[in-house]
C-alpha cells in the first residue's frame, strides 16, 4: 500500500526530511510543503537527501520563498494545492512527519 510522505520543516534545522527520505518504500511519494521546500533547491546541501525518491514540492510555498523552479533539483515535480489533493488520493495513506 503506497504512502504519501508529507514534510513541512526545513531540512537545515530539523531531521524530518532526512528521516522521511530514508524510510520510503518503492512506490511511495514525498511532498515538501511550507519550509520543507528549501530541501528541493539543487544548490543546497540538503537536496542530496532526495536521491532516489519521487519528490513533489508545493508551488505556492516555493513562490512565497522566492525560489524559482529552475533552481530545483532534477526530477522534482511542482504541484499546486489541487496537485496536493491528487497525491493524497493517489496514495493509500498519508504519513505527516511533524
Amino acid at each position, binding site marked *: 500500500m503506497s504512502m504519501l510522505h*508529507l514534510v*513541512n520543516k526545513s531540512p537545515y534545522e530539523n531531521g524530518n526530511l532526512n528521516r522521511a527520505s530514508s524510510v520510503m518504500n518503492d512506490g511511495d511519494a514525498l511532498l515538501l*510543503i*511550507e*519550509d520543507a521546500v528549501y530541501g528541493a533547491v539543487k544548490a543546497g546541501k540538503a537536496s542530496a537527501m532526495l536521491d532516489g525518491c519521487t519528490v513533489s514540492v508545493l508551488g*505556492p510555498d516555493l513562490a512565497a520563498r522566492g525560489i524559482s523552479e529552475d533552481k530545483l533539483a532534477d526530477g522534482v515535480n511542482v504541484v*499546486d*494545492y*489541487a496537485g*496536493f*489533493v*491528487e497525491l*493524497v*488520493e493517489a496514495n493509500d*495513506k*498519508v504519513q*505527516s512527519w*511533524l
Partner: protein
Amino acid sequence: MKLTIQVNEGPYQHQSSDSAYYFAKAALDKGHEIFRIFFYHDGVNNGTRLTTPPQDDRNIVARWSELAQAHDIDMVLCVAAAQRRGIVDDGEAERNGKDATNIAPGFRISGLGQLVEGAIQSDRLVVFGD
C-alpha cells in the same frame, strides 16, 4: 474521496492552519467530501472569534467559519485541548464556571472520539502541524 483533516497548531504562529485551509478548499473544489476537520493541541485556537488580525493580513478564523458555512463542514475542537487553552462555548462556560465564551461560528467542541471516528469513516486522514 472522503477526508478527515487534523490541525495541530493555532493561527498565525505556524503555517499549518493556512496549509490545511488551502488543502481543504482544493479538495472541495475537486468534488471530494470533507467528513470532518478536527482541531487538536493548539489547533483549537483556530476557533476563537476574538481575533483582530491586521487589516492587510488574512483573517484565519473568519476564513474557517466561512468555509464551514459554505460547505456545511463539521469543524470540531477537541474538548480537552480547548479546556487547556481556554476556548469556550456556552456549555463549557456553564460547566466550568466561566464568565465569557469565545468560540467562533461554525466550530463545535467535542471529544477525541470524533477524531477516531473521522479516521474510521474517511478514506484518508491528513494531519497538519508543527
